């Protein structure tokens, strides 16, 4: 085995090790993206849950719905950047259809932001009778997006 062959072998092995070491880093990076967008969506869930507590127990904090709904509006405007990276494998319920029909995904996220904005304004008016329908409208917008782009619970990574 001459020096050139030995050098070739050393370089090949080094390249292989570098690539192999990079795979977990890449996977770890993907998981970070998934975790971030899950945190973004669960913050919406937390705000919806808070709105639900006010509504179902008629708590005297109707005005707080203004802020909860505004939080959801602001968070939904982050959805496009949070989901920009195409990752549908791993511990995620995101369907590949998000990136196959990106424009629709973004428009549905914006529609949800609009409904959240409407809810915030309705809550600001103090007309609690109108808040219920506005919450349902926001729920409908959430559902429209989930129906298209979130794996159903039967296929959720949480049930595997």
């Amino acid at each position: 085995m001459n020096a050139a062959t030995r050098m070739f072998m050393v370089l090949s092995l080094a390249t292989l090790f570098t690539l192999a070491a990079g795979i977990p880093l890449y996977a770890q990076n993907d998981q970070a993206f998934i975790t971030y967008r899950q945190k973004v969506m669960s913050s919406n869930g937390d705000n919806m849950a808070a709105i639900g507590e006010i509504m179902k127990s008629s708590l005297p904090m109707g005005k707080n719905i203004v802020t909860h709904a505004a939080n959801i509006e602001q968070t939904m405007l982050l959805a496009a950047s949070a989901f920009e990276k195409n990752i549908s494998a791993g511990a995620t319920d995101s369907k590949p259809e998000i990136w196959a029909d990106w424009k629709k995904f973004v428009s549905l996220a914006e529609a949800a932001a609009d409904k959240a904005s409407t809810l915030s304004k309705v809550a600001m008016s103090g007309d609690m009778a109108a808040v219920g329908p506005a919450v349902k409208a926001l729920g409908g917008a959430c559902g429209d997006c989930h129906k298209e782009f979130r794996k159903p619970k039967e296929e959720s990574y949480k049930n595997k």
Partner: protein
Amino acid sequence: MRLFACLLLFALFASVSALAEGDATRGEYLYRAAGGCGCHTDRAGGGAELAGGRAMKTPFGTFYSTNITADAETGIGRWSDEDFIAAMTRGVAPHGRHLFPVFPYPSFAGMTRADLLDLKAYLFAQPAVRQPNRPHEVWPPFGWRWPLPVWKWLNLPLSVPTLPPARRDDPLVARGSYLVNALGHCAECHTPRNLMGGLRNGLFLAGSSDGPEGELAPNITPHKPTGLGGWSARDITWLLESGFKPDGDDVQGLMAESIEHGYGHLTLQDRDAIAAYLGTIPAVDRKVSKSSKNKGRK
């Protein structure tokens, strides 16, 4: 005197006719309480309301829902009141044809005659749509109609748990029982089925991994870790109104549709009644997942 008698007869005739025809306005509320009859509308395919054609995937094959608009040729427009009641309570269509129990007549059998007639009046007040029914794609023996009387003999009437003694006289619980077991037909999706498609009554409302359209129907008994035991009655009432669970996530699939077109339109009192009744049924320890077939204990 003769004029008075005529007026009396006319009033009597009018009231009897009204009774026979049902009240479409009341019928709309009952339609909502039945979950909006969403199985009869192919929403994903852009189908007309109540015109059928929706594919219902089950472990026995694919059933296609039927046209229940008042179209005389392809719907139920020629059905008399008695035809409608026979179909809803005994699963028998005109001319004696037995209906597959994917249509939840075991539950609807608990509806009162007055409610059935009001529901029919509402359905007949909706636009008639001409759309022929699509043949089911179900493998034998589940696609055969002739064994259905035997199936009915084995599985009817719907068996529901007896109420705890302390709640037997509670009118709210009684109303909830009627809404859950008859109108809302909750057991049809939330109770698992045996190999013959009958409901496994020992696991009443304990969830099914083989719900319609392949969906998981969760355990809604008051069992704490696996059912609704950690939920308050208000949580249930709010879910039925808004579609949101206590954690702020929204329900999916058929339940989301049933809330949007049905249960979400119920009065607060009726939603409270449903929550009150669900709190009385036996808690069953059963986590529903795609691999939960035949598991569960009280």
